[in-house]
């Protein structure tokens, strides 16, 4: 047949190919056998040991932590964060969004231990705590990081770790206080009572104050320094009833030369505001706050959330905050109100607002309250009136301990609304959750003062039992 010669050539070719192949295979494999199974690190990962040998990469771990605070977990301005959820849980906001939204159980005061959102709040918070501990441990064993950076990074990590524990304790009551990355310890960890936790946090924050630099490293105060730790410590002292310490610490913050009282209400929430103690930088140039995107709506009825009428009614006549920080939206022959502290819903040419974590007004109100409790009624009224004055109000008429405390609570309500659940925590501290919320919130029960511990967590670590009452 005519194909014979063809076949011969092909056959020969293949034979040669075969030999080449075998020889190549053999040689290649013999040369590379011993390390064939060694693979290089994936492109996206960095060996753990090397991260803390270099200031840039160590800073990047803290940057990762700050971006997580901003974009998720308890303190984000997104709907899943406490500014929105606790606003609904207490009496600041009314919900108008979809029946399947994660805010519904908060609005109905019907949280369940099995809700996935409850687990993710808990887990994401402890994930940040893990990262903080990883920084503290990594910096401690680092060979080559300069002392100055070691101190600063440890201080920042201690601060964020304390902030996370503080919020957890206020939401869940007794919680595990985690100071190590060792999962063997953390798997069976037990709960720490709230008061004991506060004293641990005080120690951590005192240490952070020692370690952190006095000056802000950035003009926009997006990386915390010593004064931020003091501001948090003032709050922790207030919550633990250590009035003298609270008032001293607040004084230290108020007296800090880097912070200047902002007298214009419409400047308070701008990113250049001089009274901001710490704020979170936006992810990209031109991006504004998550709070703005969550709360601002243009048409009525509101598609997601709006301030409750009762809340809007709580402003005194002539309170400028009602004008500057609350905006009316009319539609369907009805008026709705939205928070307008952050005024930018979308991106702007350059970012105008950052999410503020701590600001000066709270420190005045902390000191006012601490002063009342210590009997310094005049000093208390001064601090209270400092805040009232900016809102265009006359001095408070309260003169007694009781009336002053009431006035401070009322002031906190209209000054600090929709800021990470301050209102809910205040009602809880004052012990008047039931009094204020029964009748206003149909789903409210006394046991709702604490969130349920996630059921998955109790199953994974029975040392966390019992579940909080009511769940």
């Amino acid at each position, binding site marked *: 047949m005519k194909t014979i010669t063809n076949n011969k050539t092909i056959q020969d070719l293949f034979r040669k190919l075969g030999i080449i192949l075998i020889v190549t*295979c053999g040689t290649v*494999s013999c040369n590379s056998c011993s390390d064939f199974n060694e693979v290089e690190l994936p492109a996206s990962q960095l060996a753990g040991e090397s991260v803390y040998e270099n200031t840039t990469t160590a800073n990047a771990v803290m940057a990762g932590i700050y971006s997580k605070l901003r974009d998720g977990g308890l303190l984000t301005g997104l709907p899943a964060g406490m500014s929105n959820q606790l606003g609904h849980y207490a009496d600041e906001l009314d919900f108008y969004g979809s029946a399947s939204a994660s805010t519904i159980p908060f609005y109905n005061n019907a949280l369940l231990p099995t809700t996935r959102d409850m687990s993710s709040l808990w887990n994401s918070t402890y994930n940040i705590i893990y990262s903080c501990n990883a920084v503290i441990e990594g910096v401690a064993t680092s060979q080559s990081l300069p002392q100055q950076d070691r101190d600063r990074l440890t201080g920042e990590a201690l601060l964020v770790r304390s902030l996370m524990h503080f919020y957890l304790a206020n939401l869940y009551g007794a919680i595990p206080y985690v100071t190590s990355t060792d999962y063997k310890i953390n798997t069976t960890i037990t709960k720490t009572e709230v008061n004991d936790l506060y004293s641990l946090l005080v120690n951590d924050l005192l240490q952070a104050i020692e370690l952190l630099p006095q000056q802000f490293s950035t003009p926009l105060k997006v990386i915390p320094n010593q004064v931020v730790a003091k501001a948090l410590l003032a709050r922790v002292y207030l919550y633990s009833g250590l009035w003298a310490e609270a008032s001293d610490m607040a004084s230290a913050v108020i007296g800090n030369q880097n912070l200047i009282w902002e007298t214009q209400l419409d400047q308070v929430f701008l990113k250049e505001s001089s009274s901001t103690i710490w704020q979170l930088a936006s*992810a990209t140039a031109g991006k504004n706050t998550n709070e703005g995107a969550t709360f601002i709506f243009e048409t009525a009825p509101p598609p997601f959330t709006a301030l409750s009428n009762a809340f809007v009614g709580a402003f005194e006549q002539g309170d400028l905050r009602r004008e500057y920080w609350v905006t009316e939206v009319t539609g369907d022959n009805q008026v709705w109100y939205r928070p307008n502290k952050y005024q930018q819903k979308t991106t702007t040419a350059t970012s105008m607002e950052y999410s503020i974590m701590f600001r000066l007004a709270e420190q005045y109100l902390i000191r006012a309250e601490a002063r009342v409790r210590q009997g310094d009624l005049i000093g208390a009224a001064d601090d209270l009136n400092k805040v009232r004055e900016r809102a265009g109000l006359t001095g408070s008429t309260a003169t007694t301990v009781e009336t002053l405390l009431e006035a401070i609570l009322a002031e906190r309500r209209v000054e600090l609304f929709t800021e990470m659940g301050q209102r809910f925590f205040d009602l809880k501290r004052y012990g008047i959750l039931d009094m204020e919320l029964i009748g206003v919130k149909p789903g409210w029960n006394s046991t709702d003062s604490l969130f349920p511990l996630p059921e998955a967590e109790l199953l994974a670590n029975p040392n966390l039992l019992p579940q909080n009452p009511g769940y």
Partner: protein
Amino acid sequence: MKIFSANNGLRLLFYSFVLASCPPAASARAHASPPYSVGYYQQTISGTVSDTSGPLPGVSVLVKNSGISTISDVNGNFQLRAAIGDTLVFSFIGYKEVTRVATSPVMAVVLQEDAAQLQELVINAGYYSVKDKERTGSIARITAADIEKQPVSNVLATMQGRMAGVNITQKTGVPGGGFDILIRGQNSLRGEGNSPMYIIDGVPYSSQSVGNSLTSNIIPGDANPLSNLNPQEIESIEVLKDADATAIYGSRGANGVVLITTKKGKAGKVTYSGSLSSGFGSVTRFMDLMNTPQYLEMRTEAFANDGITQYPANAYDINGTWDQSRNTDWQKELLGGTAGITQVSLSASGGSEQTRFLLSANYRTESTVYPGDFEYRRKGMRFAVNHNSPDNRFSLSFTGGYSLQDNNQPGTDLTFDALRLAPNAPALYNPDGSLNWENSTWDNPLRMLEGKYTSNSGDLTTNAVLTWKIWKGLAFRSNLGFTDLNYSESTTSPSTIYNPAYGAGPEYSSIYVSNTARRSWIAEPQLSWEGQLRDLQLKALVGTTFQELTNTQLVQSGTGFTSNALIYNLSAATTKNILNNDRTVYRYQAGFARVNLNWKGKYIMNLTGRRDGSSRFGPSRRFANFGAVGMAWLFSREKLFTESTILSFGKLRGSYGTSGNDQIGDYQYLNTYTSTGINYNGTIGLQPSRLFNPDFGWETNKKLEVALETGFLKDRVFLTASWYRNRSSNQLVGIPLPGTTGFTSIQANLGATVQNQGTELTLRTINIDNGAFSWITAANISFAKNKLIAFPGLESSTYSQQYAIGKPLNIVMLYEYTGLDPETGTYQFRDVDGDGVISSPNDKKYIADFNPQYYGGIQNTFSYKGITLDFLFQFVKQDNWNPNYMLGMPGAMVNQPVAALDRWQQPGDISSFQQYSSGTRADVLNAFSRYTQSSAAVSDASYIRLKNLSVSYALPQAWTQQWKCRLFVEAQNLLTITSYDGADPEFTATGYLPPLKMITTGIQLTF
């Protein structure tokens, strides 16, 4: 060090290859010079080959002791150059070989069918093939005959109900979606560590999902790459189950091995074949949900029960905002469409006995049941060529296939909305055709259709096998292959998915895009030897494997566009983020061997083993050994039975051995930091990747099997029964950790042992076969028991609420529902610990088992002349979550099954559902929440399904002459018989579109 010793071993193996192959290579070359010289007497010899029914095309005709050969043409004619006196050998598969001395220039040869040879079915066992009757391992098989008549797009769907011990569940009815496949049960505690190994034409094919959860909302568990393969291109699928068959796959064989062999060319005249089919698909079952009057009655009563007289502002369904006379069946509205299916395939096949080819192309489109214009498209081409030298000493087989998939689907599955929306929810569209938002009082479900899911993939798989018979029984073979999969996927959220009240313009539009490239290559040089020592036949094989798989992925997002029309252009986005940019490498090397001893075809022993090294494990745990022994006794070949007229075949076989599992993901043993990809103050963050453990190793699976295979009445009745027990230990798991550890799990080996034990029966009977009419029945049934037999420290571990000793893995612990409290009208549960409070975990002691108790299929094939009717009933006996688990609380603003009307209204009522509540009362809500985690949320989800029905009619040859024409109707999931009160009983995760019912009709032409 361990590594060195292992590698020295491999190196030795290689040297032996090189040594073994070089000298024969030289001799082979010498031999390659023409073994004969052109003879003086040579002339043309021609003739015809036929069998009893007429001319026989494709018969190989070989001049003995020469390289000359040819093949008979379509009329059975052949011609070649030979001399008178030369010996010609005529061979054709299925016929007895005929040897004739050429005595004249024209010859007529008649071939006899070889009944014995027809029965000698040869099974692919991966590295070797084995006669079905003489195999020692447990291998299930389906062939093109069964695969081709199913109008489905995924290979795994074609296996459902047809193989004993193979349990397959379809996860979604959306085309391109995935399947769950378990071969002989769940071996690993890790849900994702139970996939079998897939090998397409000798090349491992990673079934690890491609894509990214950010970009594939609609497909549960990401896209399954096996959908790249067109079932019509497959010749056979073999599933290797026991130790004897899987140990040679070592660390990857624990969960079974699926060998997919694609079609190859057949010698003879070139045959062209084309087929076209089209049809439709629709949802198999809907749930019986409340209509508006029933629903409103429920809502009114719920608020009354709660003592709320002033309906809340957001209770639009009942506070007068929505029209209470509207009534929409949302299931029909959102999922009630019909999907169109069209499939075209073309092929050409032919060649000589030495070189054969097959070229095939196919095209398939499938639209969806959702409203709107969505479509899945697949185009594929495949090429196979086989060549062998005339002396058969050298052969080459090459297959290559490329397929393109385009999938456009809605960004989100509408199934959940279809079940939950209030029946009086507003109209979908305004009169002007725009989406109706009803003054911001609802999230129009069709907004989700504005967001699109698109995926495109290009998948190349190629394989070459070179075989070279070096010396008598000694052969060298190398399997070489590579795969290249490029997959891109995107999900868009244009601003139009938002309520216009948000005032969101295109500056809010966003897109997530992921691009994945997966490349792998494999080289498997092997030496095999066959020899005969008197009555003992010996076969041996040694080989090594080198494999590398590289995955690269880039996930990006873009937000803020100037126009929604630019949404697919990332450069037009104001904010662009790179969310993941990663490249991972998996490397794997192994040495493997097999020795097969066969004494007189009666006593057979098969020894297999493998030493594996994988980059997925830390340096100290990188290598491991696996091995098995299999034996068979063909007792029907003993004298006692050879004369038997009843027993025609009998074999007892057994095997024991180990295989392993390395499905753990790459780099898990390293302590690393990963980039968050997110900017903070000019720095891109870093985060700890995981809690790490450098010392985890392989999971090992010890498998034991005993089986009996018997044929009666000339094999007209063929029955096999096998019993197996697999024990999987050294469990490699992400041990769940409490969130306080910062993560939710850590990888480690756990001293737990999981046992899978079961019995599989298959029966094939030829009920009638009288030439014109035949009726064949094939049935299989598998009984399987999965059990956790050891777990040191279970009680104090994080698994204490997930597993129980002596119980299967796939269980949930639930409250035990004890009925309704007739006084309070709320659900009650057994207070196991008697502390007066129903609480987890102490009261969650009721165990629901989600493993199927038994499953199988019964297939009947009837043929009469050109008509063939074939149907398969698939059945599963199982429990699963019922609607109580997935729907919300009766009384809240979600629709309910009609059954929920039977509720408690006043003290003394005995009913099945508790009192309605809008969701504000903690006691009712808690009772409901417990109810969803109680025995009441699980019910029987067994079903019998007419999985496949096909009728085909081949037009009589007398009409079509040279042509063959076949008309067919094929249907899948045509009928489902079940008492399950949810939608479809086949699902793994709730809220996704169930498998569709499909009917297609078509025509196939061959000439």
